[in-house]
């Protein structure tokens, strides 16, 4: 019996492009398969992707046991406002992000202040 552990995303997960110049989101409901934790304090997961209708060329890995991860980290504090302004996220997505947060008092105060400004700016 497999002992692999999984996590199913309860909210959007922000992931950085390999060059860290852009951000994308793994959707709520994506299943992450736990691989390992590194002593630096990070957890490593893999995901399965069914690729249909595209023939992706393959190459040998450059070194034994080579892993090229992308990084994911939480959407923090005021970044939620930027997210609202730049990405078409749903009410459920926003709710999921807020629920997954553990902001400190200062972050929360700033967030409420900016959210109020954002709401006031809406037509």
């Amino acid at each position, binding site marked *: 019996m497999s002992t692999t552990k999984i996590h199913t995303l309860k909210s959007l997960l922000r992931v950085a492009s390999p060059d*860290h110049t852009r951000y994308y989101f793994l959707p709520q409901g994506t299943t992450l398969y736990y691989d*390992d934790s590194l002593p*630096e*304090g990070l*957890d490593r997961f893999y995901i399965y992707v069914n690729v249909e209708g595209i023939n992706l060329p393959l190459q040998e890995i450059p*070194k034994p*046991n*080579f892993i090229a991860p992308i*990084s994911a*980290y939480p959407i923090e504090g005021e970044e939620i406002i930027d997210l609202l302004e730049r990405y078409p996220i749903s009410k459920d997505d926003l709710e999921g992000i807020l629920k997954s947060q553990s902001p400190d008092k200062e972050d929360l105060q700033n967030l409420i202040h900016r959210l109020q400004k954002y709401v006031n700016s809406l037509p």
Partner: protein
Amino acid sequence: MNDQAKDNAADRARKQTKKSGKCVNQSQTTNCCSNNNQELNSSIEILVGGPYTKNGKNHPYGHVALRVITEGKDITYDYGRYGQTWGLGGSEGEGMLNVWTNFSKYIKGEKATGRTTKGYTFNVSDDDAKKVIEFFESKIKGVEPNQDRGYMKRFRIKEDYHALKSNCTTISVDGAKPAKPSLMEGSEHYNNGNGLTTGDKLAAKLNGWPNRIFMPADLGNYLSNLKGCDTPNKTATYNK
């Protein structure tokens, strides 16, 4: 007594003191705890993260980072495998240096693993603290951060990470040495590979056991047992 002779005498006295735990040979010219009359307004803190258990799995290796507090700055240097990895058990990888300017954010991440981090603080002069910052700045000179989260910038440094030769422990110690040149004198007896499994130890021996402390737990043991002038000025425990 000329300057060289004074230095040599002070060095001998400091070594004796370190061994005995008692300050010896105190005089106006050779004070073993001498700071050359510099005010120690800055500090460095060696942060030794312990093992932790998560998702039912033990993670015994630990982690080390170096914090510098000086002249309105509070910077934590945290080196590790935050990028590509390769080799046996992912023991090698891109050398990634995280430069944190918000200590609370750094330690929050460490606490989130469930581990306990011990901080060993040494008071140093502003000039010596500056040397530590310069050490790390030389590592990232001309390198653009490949991640910028405001309070933390991540840099790919020239060196690759290597579990035995260039890891979080070795770079933190190397970074502390410009401010505390004698810090690791006498540390070789603590180089026991605490935190490694029997298999890891065997692999390390086959690879060539490093001649310096490379495991966080060994560094923690060493720092906890420092005596005399080299005793940390303060210790702290960070956990949930």
